[in-house]
């Protein structure tokens, strides 16, 4: 697989703590909690997919239902190929780190990603390397996210665990980090931990 295979879209809106990417394919956004990367390698910015939306390109035109006669929704797109052009899929990513020369810092980048920078889904080995440190969890907890932050964290941690040969060890390690961060809110902590565990 080439790098092109992991390219999912382009940055169309950007700020210090988050960016929005337009996906090349309709419904082609990475899963919630996936780690994505954008920008040139020496100033790469990493983000977690925090919310995905698919809407019509023209806010003035409301889509209509078309499938009354169909048994499979895919048939609708086959019969109306223009539809793939009339809708767009975007996702919002919360920034959780950036490359600083050769090292990766789990902190906000000095400058935000640029518009039209390509956005790549991180390969499993990249994701594993990035999640070796767990400081990014604190960044996510502090951000207002499109989806509840706890859901996002649970999804991200489960994905990172799934890339590893011993997922349970990682879940315990991440769980303990969360326990430290949320020590004073045991109810929230416990709900979050339950979501982590449902990975298996």
């Amino acid at each position, binding site marked *: 697989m080439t790098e092109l295979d992991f390219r999912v879209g382009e940055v169309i809106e950007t700020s210090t703590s988050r960016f929005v990417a337009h996906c090349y394919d309709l419904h082609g956004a990475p899963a919630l909690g996936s780690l994505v990367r954008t920008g040139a390698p020496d100033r790469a910015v990493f983000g977690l997919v925090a919310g995905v939306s698919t809407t019509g390109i023209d806010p003035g035109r409301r889509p209509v239902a078309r499938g009354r006669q169909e048994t499979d929704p895919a048939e609708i797109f086959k019969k109306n190929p223009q539809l793939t052009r009339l809708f767009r899929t975007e996702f919002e990513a919360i920034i959780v780190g950036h490359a600083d020369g050769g090292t990766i810092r789990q902190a906000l980048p000095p400058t935000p990603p640029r518009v039209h920078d390509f956005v790549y889904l991180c390969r499993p080995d990249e994701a594993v390397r990035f999640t070796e440190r767990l400081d990014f969890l604190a960044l996510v907890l502090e951000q207002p996210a499109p989806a509840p932050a706890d859901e996002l964290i649970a999804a991200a941690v489960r994905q990172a665990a799934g890339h590893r040969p011993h997922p349970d060890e990682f879940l315990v390690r991440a769980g303990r980090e969360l326990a*430290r961060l949320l020590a004073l*809110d*045991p109810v929230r902590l416990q709900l979050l931990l339950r979501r982590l565990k449902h990975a298996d």
Partner: protein
Amino acid sequence: MRTDGRGSWPGGRRRLGRVIGGSVSGGLEIRLDADVPVEEMSIGRFVTVEGDRRRFLCLVTDVKLRSVSDRVATVPPDYEDPFIARVMGGITTYGVLQVLPTLTLPENPDDPPEPVKTVPGHFSPAYDATPEDLKAAYGDEGKTDNFRVGSPLEMPDIPLCINIRRLVERSNGVFGKSGTGKSFLTRLLLLGIIRSGLASVLVFDMHNEYGWKAEDKERGIEVKGLRQLYGSSVVVFTLDEESSRRRGVTYDSVVEIGYNELEIDDLLLLAEPLNLSSRAPDLMAVLEREYGRDWLAWFLSLEDPQEREQLAKNLGFGMNVVNALYQSLSRLKQLSFLKPRADTRAVDLMLSYLKTGRSVVLEFGRTNDLLAYMLVANVLTRRIHRHYVEAKERFLGGVGEDPKPLVVVIEEAHKFLSPAVAHHTIFGTIAREMRKYNVTLLVVDQRPSGIDDEVMSQLGTRIVCSLDNEKDLESVLTGVVGRSELRNLLARLDTRQQALVLGHAVPIPTPVRVRDYDEHLYRSLKPRASAPEGGTIDLEKDLFGEW
């Protein structure tokens, strides 16, 4: 010096946690790391805290459970779920060790450890103490004066030594309620003392368990006594020849005591068991003045009441006073070892052995009632002590040798050293004068609160097995730093094979799991000092030939 890495120390010792608070007087608090199970920690364990400049040897005195906020307790997490338990354990809820910093360990292992005058900084890491740490504090088992009495609690592989030279410098006590292994512990100490060659011992063996053999009821086996282990460096005397012979004991001499050897003070010590009247001391003093050293034998021969009436008239005492004294003293006739006149003065024979550096065990056989025990122990010790005083004074005057220190072992010590009689008995004197005349005591007792405070305060080293009486606990810890923590520890000792050692012979109060009294011990008892004077004893052969 501080290192945070785990397992990066020699031997890969485990990091337990970090200091989160404390003081010199109140001890330190160590928060346990998440992966250290709280139940593995127990009071009596040793931990080392690595400060920036010093290492502190600490004793665990309490183990506590904490949580980061009260909400955790109000809304308890779902600990049924192993994942949640594993993640939250040690973080939202965690264990804390309360430790007493006891010594500062030197950088250089040859330097002595120092008392603690400060505390390690916040978040200094704490580790399991290593054998090297304990060696630095308690001394090396391989060194001459040290004797291994056991191991720290929960750390069975680490030897814990006491310093015999310091032990015999003062009087000492072994305390504990009955059935806690006082005799085993005492015998162990005596083995250590004899092996060191630093002192002789004289044991008044009320229950015949030191000399030749003893029974280990727990294991249902017989264990070897001092004579079996040290051959002819230990001499066994008996008060009851028949009993000794029946028990298959190799004894060296039978003790008989003449009435003429009893002094009035010896009898006054027995005022209670003999039920002596208040006029008895006066009457005895008069009798001794009128009839000389043999007054007692003569007085006890007055079986005819008329003779006694005549005596009362002659001396100007009431008939009832004379009769009461006669009745009281007649109890002495039942003591088979008392003779009107003894052929050999047992005390001279004992002294001759002690002079050659041997140790003496006096078995009481079936004569193990308290009256006989107190009488014999007092009579013999009084004379032996007198001899040591003379020898020491001669030595100080430039004549003769310094007598070899002697440790006198007495059981049921509160009977001799209670506030009421401590001032009359020779034992009170010995305890108070410390080692001035090279004689010290090893008192074995189950009621330390019955012992005179002044005597108690003079005991250099106290070895305390399990006690549960409040007064007794209070009494053994008089004058010790960290009393409340130690008391807590003491109250939780097992009733078998565990003891707290306090005082002169150990650098810090130390809970000990007493070593097993077995073949392994026997084998470790190679003598440290040269054979006693006299030249006729082949110690090596005696020690190992009988096995």
